[in-house]
């Protein structure tokens, strides 16, 4: 069973909390500690960015994080090494890579190296379902699970393609636009229901998750989990307590009725 499946089983209907961090931000050593802090705070899954110079799907916070990592001289191999080291410390926590197509195609064997480092999934932000076929085949061969993005405006046939191609989870964007906390999000059940009908992997909401209310709204809409990115990256950059922040959001993922 994959680490994601095992995690969703273990959570037994309560929501998964995913923490996103940019690998190598602001340097390799600090980055490793931040990953541990997220787990310490209770993150169920870790999503990690591999920095790209031209991240068109990202807002200012994640752009700046990628730039800090690149300025520190972080290379793709450093990112894989960070994942491999994390894997020795945390055997069961699923790790998903989020990056861009040019980083993947520039390195022959990227998928295999990612899988060998211990990553469980790969989301390529600028590869939509329309172009995903060859990438997914390579991921399947390498033993890393494809994650695709679904949005409220994604048409039915595309959702069916996403359901067919992806594993791990389905990354649902809570609104149009780019990553960041600036524009909030709309956590509506319509997309979740359509994904469920299409038989897609568990829906997880990303974009606009920065407070306990957002977590609850996303889960109430039927999501199986949430991913918080910009808020954590921003806090880490300002030297804040990442573990405490993750703990405060994770506290909202419980089953409301049983908690009362």
């Amino acid at each position, binding site marked *: 069973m994959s680490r994601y499946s095992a995690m969703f089983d273990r959570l037994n209907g309560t929501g998964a909390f995913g923490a996103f961090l940019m690998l190598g931000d602001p340097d390799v050593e600090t980055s490793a500690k931040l990953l541990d802090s997220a787990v310490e705070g209770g993150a169920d899954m870790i999503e990690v960015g591999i920095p*790209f*110079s*031209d*991240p*068109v*799907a990202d*807002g*200012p916070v994640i*752009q700046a994080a990628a*730039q800090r990592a*690149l300025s520190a001289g972080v*290379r*793709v191999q450093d990112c894989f090494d960070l994942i491999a080291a994390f894997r020795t410390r945390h055997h069961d926590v699923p790790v998903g890579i989020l990056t*861009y*197509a*040019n*980083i*993947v*195609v*520039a*390195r022959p064997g990227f998928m295999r190296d990612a899988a060998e480092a211990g990553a469980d999934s790969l989301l390529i*932000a*600028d*590869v*939509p*379902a*329309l*172009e995903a076929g060859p990438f997914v085949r390579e991921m399947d061969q390498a033993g890393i699970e494809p994650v*695709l*993005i*679904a*949005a409220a*405006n*994604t*048409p039915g046939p*595309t959702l069916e393609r996403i359901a067919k191609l992806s594993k791990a989870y389905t990354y649902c*964007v809570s*609104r*149009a*636009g*780019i990553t960041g906390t600036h*524009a909030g999000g709309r956590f509506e059940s319509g997309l979740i229901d359509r994904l469920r009908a299409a038989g897609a992997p568990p829906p997880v909401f990303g974009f606009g998750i920065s407070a306990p209310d957002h977590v609850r709204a996303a889960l109430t809409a039927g999501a199986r989990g949430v991913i918080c990115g910009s808020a954590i990256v921003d806090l880490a950059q300002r030297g804040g307590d990442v573990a405490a922040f993750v703990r405060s959001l994770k506290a909202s993922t419980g089953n409301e009725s049983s908690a009362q």
Partner: protein
Amino acid sequence: MRLNGRFGRFGGCYVPEILVPALEQLEAAFLDAQDDPSFSAELNDLLANYAGRPTPLTRCRNLPGNIYLKREDLLHGGAHKTNQVLGQGLLAKRMGKTRLIAETGAGQHGVATAIVGALLGFETLIYMGAKDVERQKLNVFRMELMGARMIPVESGGRTLKDAINEALRDWSASFPTTHYLLGTAAGPHPFPTMVREFQRVIGREARAQMLEQLGRLPDAVVACVGGGSNSIGLFADFIDDPVRLIGVEPAGKGIDGKEHGATLLRGRPGILHGAETYVLQDDEGQINETWSVSAGLDYPAVGPQHAHLKESGRAEYVGCADDEALAAFKALAENEGILCAFESAHALAHALDLAEDDPESAILVGLSGRGDKDVAQAQALLA
């Protein structure tokens, strides 16, 4: 998508999922417009009576060899860019959009978009790298005179590629009301095909004019290549003809260093700004900053059809350094009384080399724009 959007293995539609419906809507609008006589009637009317088409074909009187210039410098707006902004502007109207966004490097495409925004009544927003804003103050003022608003982009290297990133980010939230008026035959499908079709008029006219003036096709067709819209527009109607097609890339301060924009000569296949194409990048896939004396050629990717024309061998791509372009700029001014854009001077420089090798061969040069925007820079460089 209804068209396949590929040129050999290049092209495609590598954008966040959220933007795919916007590109599908654009493709549908483009294809419907192609079949609608009222669309081409309105576009042709604007091209003729607003922009000044057809543009002349001028045989050089005094420069050596047998060089013909396709005079896009005489088009309203001062460059070939007006052809396609009119086409995309009408498409945006057709789709019911109320707002245009565009990227610009030197400001020429920003000015062209401001023109169509004023003419057709759009709210117009231009993204421009903060570094370019400083270098191109006059073009910024031109855009503002025509009612466009300019947003300086502070991310990355603060130049054209960062302006494209920012326009894509804007569009991924604003597409219900906004058309992204991409400035060249690059980017995700359907832009490379659509922009080529709107620029095809350059080569169609030039081919007929060559047959009329010379009585035969030229031996070589030469155009500069940045993103590649003027060159693909000039090449398109010659692709099935027995003529050499030559694209001239900006070799900047030399293609063996880092300060150039010679994507097809020194890049390798990758994925940037929505397309699989040649990209100037490091060994890890991080995108390089580029350099050219002509800001309009200063771009680390290239239209995917050019990548295919290179790999298939149908077109040749060569480099022209800053100083060679500058010398051609000066030669054209002194000998023919024409101030051309630095971009176009790259094509002319190579044509002059060809003419030296074979004075008899007929060479068609895409003179893509006029040089008014470059006069101050020329004054500094030639002083």
